[in-house]
């Protein structure tokens, strides 16, 4: 009978799951696994930092809908993955992380590069495994992929001691899953669906409040059909941007702290919130006590723990978003589409009276909103847009028009600065034929830009629109608004970095736009460079703030539309 090593079994198990690319950094304890990887059709992309490998796997998963895989060694390799795992848990990103561990006999002895990986990652993974028998490898990897991708998706970590990777075993294909405690409910309860439709039928000012769950469940088409049939306006959360087309007449955009006036206000004034694949995050609700005070709530989610966690649901529905919406469409039946004249007119009036606005003077400094709009115009919106965290993220979400799911990738829940560059690399690795544009701030960029070396060396030509305002912009905005303008520890130094030279030094093309008239030519030029990554530095107005804004912890009844409202 053919015997193979644990390491060979690991790589074979990854192949069995259909993995085509892994993002990783090798090291002592994981070295045995890298040897069979050398012969495998699986592509390995060498990240410059394990956090980068983790975010690449996330970007890959966001863009493709498949499980992203990252690999790291024991100790610091594993601890460097922690941020990406926590990010993936918050944003429900399907991830499998493979980590090496010191040999079983050394575990617990403070061996070189030993860390208690399963203990450290317990609260930031959906589940994790410490493998003690090489014969378990095939089944554990199979379970890990199943858990990562089913139910509410999330990260799963598999920790493999070096002696287990070196041990010999006889390969057997994974058997049936042995998970007596894991049975996600995907099919909604019919009685609940009937209740929901009755409530919808009698609502006068309903709003569909939808988010990342729609994208994970591939429910965009069903959502559109449901919104059309019921004529209910739709707000899309930061995590759900693109799950409902912004170009649709019922689309109101993003709600919450930096949401559009109409999205935020329509929720506040609604008498029914149909919450699908959302979790009433504090960035959406503000103070939950004042959130949508007149609304009944239908809340559907695949994770029962989200229902009534923040806001008690009048109609709780546990199930996969697509199954829920399809069941509601069926239960809605051939009811005529309501006109909702009064409600929709009110909404249109808000849209007319409180639009997003900014002013770009032709000879002034570049406004970041203008860059996003030019980027959208010149690419025709035909790009996967990736962002980091902060002002640029909000400008991108507000001023880009998203029309399709999986075309917007960002760090929503954890708010991980430095997410954009590696996530863009991962997205491009998964979708090589798509234009992948990261919008990044200079604060974020300086946390992870080394992954552009990975992109250049591995032939992954992403493009980065770098908003340079020489500061942590969102922190600066808060310090100006709430800390008497005392800019404590938030300034990155004027002209501290020559980003064009930095880009070129990493094997990328570097471009710079310093005036509004240079914006479009720089974007156009970047589209002609496809043999290497491109960084376009936009030197933007340092004083520009993100509006609309609801001050943190306040009521969503008060939306500041611009500096004039301060």
């Amino acid at each position: 009978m053919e015997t193979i090593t644990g390491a060979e079994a690991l790589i074979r198990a990854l192949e069995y799951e259909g993995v085509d690319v892994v993002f990783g950094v090798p090291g002592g304890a994981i070295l045995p696994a890298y040897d069979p990887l050398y012969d495998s059709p699986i592509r390995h992309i060498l990240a410059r930092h394990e956090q980068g490998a983790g975010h690449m796997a996330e970007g890959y998963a966001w863009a493709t809908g498949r499980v992203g895989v990252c690999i790291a060694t024991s100790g610091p390799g594993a601890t460097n993955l922690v941020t990406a795992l926590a990010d993936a848990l918050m944003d429900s990103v399907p991830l499998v992380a493979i980590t090496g561990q010191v040999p079983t006999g050394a575990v617990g002895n403070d061996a070189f590069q030993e860390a208690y990986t399963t203990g450290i990652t317990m609260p930031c993974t959906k589940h994790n495994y410490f493998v003690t028998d090489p014969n378990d490898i095939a089944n554990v990897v199979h379970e890990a992929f199943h858990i990562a991708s089913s139910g509410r998706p999330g990260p799963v970590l598999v920790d493999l001691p070096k002696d287990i990777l070196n041990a010999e075993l006889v390969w057997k294909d994974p058997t049936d899953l042995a998970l007596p405690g894991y049975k996600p409910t995907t099919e909604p309860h019919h009685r609940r669906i009937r209740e929901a439709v009755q409530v919808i039928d009698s609502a006068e000012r309903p709003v569909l409040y939808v988010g990342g769950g729609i994208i994970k469940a591939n429910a965009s088409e069903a959502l559109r059909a449901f919104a059309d049939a019921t004529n209910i306006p739709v707000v899309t959360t930061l995590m759900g941007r693109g799950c409902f087309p912004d170009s649709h007449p019922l689309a109101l955009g993003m709600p919450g702290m930096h949401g559009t006036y109409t999205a935020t206000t329509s929720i506040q004034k609604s008498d029914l919130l149909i919450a699908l694949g959302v979790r009433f995050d504090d960035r959406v609700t503000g103070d939950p006590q004042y959130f949508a005070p007149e609304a009944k709530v239908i809340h559907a989610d695949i994770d029962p723990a989200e229902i009534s966690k923040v806001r008690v649901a009048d109609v709780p529905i546990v199930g996969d978003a697509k199954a829920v919406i399809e069941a509601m469409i069926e239960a809605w039946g051939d009811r005529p589409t309501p006109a909702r004249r009064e409600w929709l007119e009110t909404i249109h009036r808000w849209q007319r009276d409180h639009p997003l606005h900014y002013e770009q003077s032709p000879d002034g400094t570049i406004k970041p909103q203008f860059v996003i709009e030019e980027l959208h115009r010149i690419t025709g919106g035909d790009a996967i847009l990736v962002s980091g965290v902060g002002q640029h993220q909000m400008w991108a979400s507000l001023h880009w028009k998203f029309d399709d799911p999986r075309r917007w990738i960002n760090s929503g829940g954890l708010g991980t600065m430095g997410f954009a560059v590696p996530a863009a690399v991962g997205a491009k690795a998964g979708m090589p034929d798509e234009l992948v544009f990261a919008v990044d701030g200079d604060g974020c960029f300086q946390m992870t830009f080394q992954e552009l070396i990975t992109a250049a060396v591995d032939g992954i030509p992403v493009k980065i629109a770098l908003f340079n305002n020489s500061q942590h912009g969102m922190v600066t905005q808060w310090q100006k608004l709430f800390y008497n303008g005392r800019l404590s520890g938030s300034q990155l130094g004027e002209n501290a970095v020559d980003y064009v030279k930095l880009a070129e030094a990493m094997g990328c093309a570097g471009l710079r736009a310093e005036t509004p008239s240079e914006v479009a030519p720089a974007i156009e030029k970047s589209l002609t460079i496809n043999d290497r990554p491109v960084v376009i530095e936009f030197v933007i107005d340092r004083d520009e703030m993100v509006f609309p804004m609801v001050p943190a912890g306040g009521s969503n009844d008060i939306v500041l539309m611009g500096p004039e409202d301060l």
Partner: protein
Amino acid sequence: MYHTLSVLVEDKSGVLARVSSLLARRGFNIHSLAVGPTADEGMSRMTIVVEAPELEQVKKQLHKLVNVVKITELEPDRSVEREIMLVRVAASVGSRSEALEVAAIFKATAVDVGANSITFQVTGTPSKINDFLELVRPYGIVDMAKSGRIALGREPKARKLKAIS
């Protein structure tokens, strides 16, 4: 408010850490936690007494743990709850017989007797144990250990009656 949960878990290493870490992370206070094997090989039962304003979130969050198989909330009037306590009471020659009399009322057993103290073992409901503790407190409690509560649901009444008829 205290709630008693009977949690059936897979008998795998790290499960106790997962459960206790999750409860701590979500801000639920563990009053007591007892764990032991069940009749079903491969499964363990945890009896957890938690302090939480409402139990729904605790149960839902625990259910998210892959190794948690079943959670039952045990209502005091529909379950049997027991605890065991070992308590060493200061008792010299003069007060020894008095302490033994109190113990007899509670069916507590003297499991160790020394020159200056007696160690009692007492089994029963948490309230019985607390009552005993209060009665012997005046003698002076030298040391004490409690097992934490274990509990099982009672057989539902309807089924029991049917079985009898």
